[in-house]
């Protein structure tokens, strides 16, 4: 637990003060490690020159490779200050003091000398400049750290709970007599100390001590077990949420997406949705999957959806077109380069299968495999990602039924496919049967596509998929 002791300086004589110190008492925090960034320039402490300590092996000079802090930052003892390098050894220099960094003596890549000042730190006037002395505050520990870091120069053995108890009561651990094994300080020792001070017998706090589970172990084991038995925070203490908002600039690919999506929404979209009965297709795919497997290709539903879309586009070529910027001309694209939206670590990527109009379902499947493995390896090329004319987005693999997809310029239509669900439906004889139902949601550019065209295309696409044998009639 890291605590920044912040006291008002009004009662303390300081060496070079020109300002009144203004501190906020609520800066006392008991949660994870905090850096306090003070925005007002307050000076009420002594400037100490922190010298670069001995590296070992007779080394006298090192190169400064990275600064972890800058002038004006607050540091606590044991915080990392910089990284220096000497002859294949990288050394992390940590702060010996709590305070504010006032000066960095070296720039990056400069040579720093052992024994010479590295940084100037302004420390609290109330603390002495005794480098090797015992320190009351424990070094910063996050929930992940389960160790007791040795306090410089003085080994005080105590569990985190006991330390906290001591800190809460302003007790120096070095003044408490430890009665535990190896002079370890126990909770009882703190309470006894307090009792002596206040002249009263304090009631024991509920379930404060953490019991080591391993009988052979002589110390406190790692925190996973500790956490389960941690002391609940007393209700009287105000609940402090120390999370901070985090602002980052939008760069690279995301910046490009912002541009594209902003352009996309200038297109007047209209939507059209429908339900497809894939019962027959599911069966067909089951039969064909092993055949494709033998040829080394993984067969999903997408190749069928893509091929059916291409057959539909042959009848309704306006859906495979592009409108120019001035909305004066429509270009009917000859190739059906059907894009398939892919979810990768980076986000939404849309590689496309080129010339679907001359590909067989197997060829489409094979190409999809190639694009998928390149996509997951982050190795798609510019050619794979450009030149698309129509897009299908299989959001159903993640979930959902209906969607409102956004058209990707310069295209004019897009389809979002929901997940396949098993639902009861009526057949021609009025009987209920188990149907494999998938929903499709189309969006199209209403400037050049009308509802009827979209509906007819969708019906045609639907009929190919509901009755796959009919695809055979129109395959080229």
């Amino acid at each position, binding site marked *: 637990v890291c605590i920044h002791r912040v006291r008002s300086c009004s009662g303390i004589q300081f060496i070079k003060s020109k300002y009144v110190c203004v501190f906020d008492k609520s800066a006392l925090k008991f949660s994870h490690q905090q850096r306090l960034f003070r925005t007002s320039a307050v000076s009420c402490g002594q400037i100490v020159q922190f010298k670069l300590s001995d590296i070992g092996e007779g080394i006298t000079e090192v190169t400064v490779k990275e600064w972890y802090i800058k002038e004006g930052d607050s540091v606590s003892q044991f915080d990392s200050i910089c990284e220096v390098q000497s002859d*294949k050894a*990288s050394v992390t220099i940590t702060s010996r003091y709590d305070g504010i960094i006032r000066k960095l003596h070296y720039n990056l890549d400069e040579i720093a000398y052992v024994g010479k000042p590295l940084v100037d730190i302004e420390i609290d006037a109330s603390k002495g400049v005794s480098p090797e002395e015992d320190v009351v505050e424990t070094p910063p520990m996050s929930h992940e750290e389960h160790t*007791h870091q040795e306090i410089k120069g003085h080994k005080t053995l105590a569990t985190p709970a006991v330390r906290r108890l001591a800190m809460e009561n302003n007790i120096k651990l070095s003044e408490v007599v430890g009665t535990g094994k190896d002079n370890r300080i126990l909770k009882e020792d703190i309470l006894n100390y307090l009792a002596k001070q206040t002249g009263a017998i304090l009631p024991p706090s509920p379930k404060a001590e953490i019991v080591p589970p391993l009988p052979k172990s002589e110390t406190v084991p790692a925190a996973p077990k500790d956490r389960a038995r941690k002391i609940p925070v007393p209700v009287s203490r105000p609940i402090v949420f120390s999370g901070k908002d985090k602002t980052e600039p939008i760069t690279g*690919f995301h910046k490009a997406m912002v541009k594209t999506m902003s352009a996309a929404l200038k297109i007047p979209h209209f939507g059209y949705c429908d339900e497809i009965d894939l019962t027959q297709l599911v069966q067909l795919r089951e039969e064909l999957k092993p055949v494709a497997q033998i040829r080394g290709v993984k067969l999903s539903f997408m190749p069928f959806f893509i091929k059916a879309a291409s057959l539909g586009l042959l009848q309704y070529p306006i859906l495979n077109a592009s409108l120019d910027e001035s909305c004066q001309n429509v270009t009917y694209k000859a190739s059906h380069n059907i894009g398939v939206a892919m979810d990768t670590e980076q986000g939404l990527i849309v590689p496309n299968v080129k010339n679907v109009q001359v590909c067989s379902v197997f060829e489409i499947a094979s190409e999809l495999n190639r694009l998928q493995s390149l996509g997951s390896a982050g190795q798609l090329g510019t050619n794979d990602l450009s030149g698309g004319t129509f897009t299908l987005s299989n959001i159903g693999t993640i979930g959902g039924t209906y969607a409102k997809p956004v058209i990707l310029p310069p295209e004019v239509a897009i389809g979002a496919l929901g997940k396949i669900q098993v639902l009861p439906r009526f057949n021609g004889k009025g009987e209920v049967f188990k149907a494999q139902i998938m929903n499709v949601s189309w969006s199209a550019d209403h400037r050049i596509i009308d509802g009827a065209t979209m509906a007819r295309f969708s019906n045609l696409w639907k009929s190919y998929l509901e009755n796959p044998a009919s695809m055979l009639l129109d395959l080229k």
Partner: protein
Amino acid sequence: MVLQASLKNCLQLSCILRTPKAGFRSATSGSLIIQSTSDDVYQNLAVEDWIHDHMNLENRQVLFLWRNSPAVVIGRHQNPWQECNLRLLRQKNIKLARRRSGGGTVYHDLGNINLTFFTSRKKYERMENLKLVVKALKALRPQLDVHVTDRYDILLDRHYKISGTAAKLGQTTAYHHCTLLCNADKFVLSSVLKSPYKGIKSNATPSVPASVKNLFEEDPSLTCEMLLDAIAEEYATQHQTDHHITLINPADETVLPGINNKTKELQTWEWVYGKTPKFSVSTCFNMVYKDSVLDVKVDIDIKHGRIEVCNIDLPEQWLPPAVCSELVKSLTGSKFCPNETTTLTATLLRVCPQDAELQSRWNLLCENMIMLM
């Protein structure tokens, strides 16, 4: 490969590794020899981090033995573009890792063994460790001509480097690790450690190339297991401890709490590429377009692995200035990474004027830019 290990030692280890620094007592204050069961470079580097951060090495020392599947490991302050052929690494699926210690770039595969000597900061002594290794090798094969140089390399036959060294010093603990070439793929090694990128100006620590040789070439009866065993034996003797090698699983959170977070951190782009010291790329390339050859000059400043400043000098009007400036604006702030640039430029293309000529020029320029990364 399983060397001597016992269940009893595994349990003992979990007690040892789990108990915090203020923990251990004389009962188990001997030195420790541990070996990783994983060949994943990130997991193994994470174990080093964990021991460095969490173990009390005041009264004990640890020897950690590990091997990795093919990977290139660069030093803390190095520039991967300068050190290796990133394109080849991606093609061959060879991992790239940045370690926390200083020093130069090495290629690891299962024919290379890694040794890490953990000590307290005061007891940090690289020469002693390397002499231990040489002693072990000579005990195994007395006829081997191996010696330690003052650059902390181990040379075979006075000429070939078989081991490189690096170290990390922290507040209270330190480690020194080194490689040892037993039977690594020298062909892959030399091809991946040759950088094809031109025009890089950087203050990053450069590697010093050296001729290497495998111990296997000197004596084909040698295997990695034999070397590991010999070194462990010598270590055990010198540290007066049992010659027991305890196996540890670098994915086991119960033995190494917090290890998986360390592993993840080592795999992030921000660590591997983002920690590259500021550098610049000034180069030119030729583009063949239709019947002409164009000269393009490029100047890029990269900080934290991201493009800070980008200048592309194209023949006038080859691309409309608005389009060119859009490209430069989008590249600024984005990662100096081929995948990022590919997806970025392909996405931007959607909002560019839709004429085929323009688009093919754009694609050509972008592909060439991506080749620089």
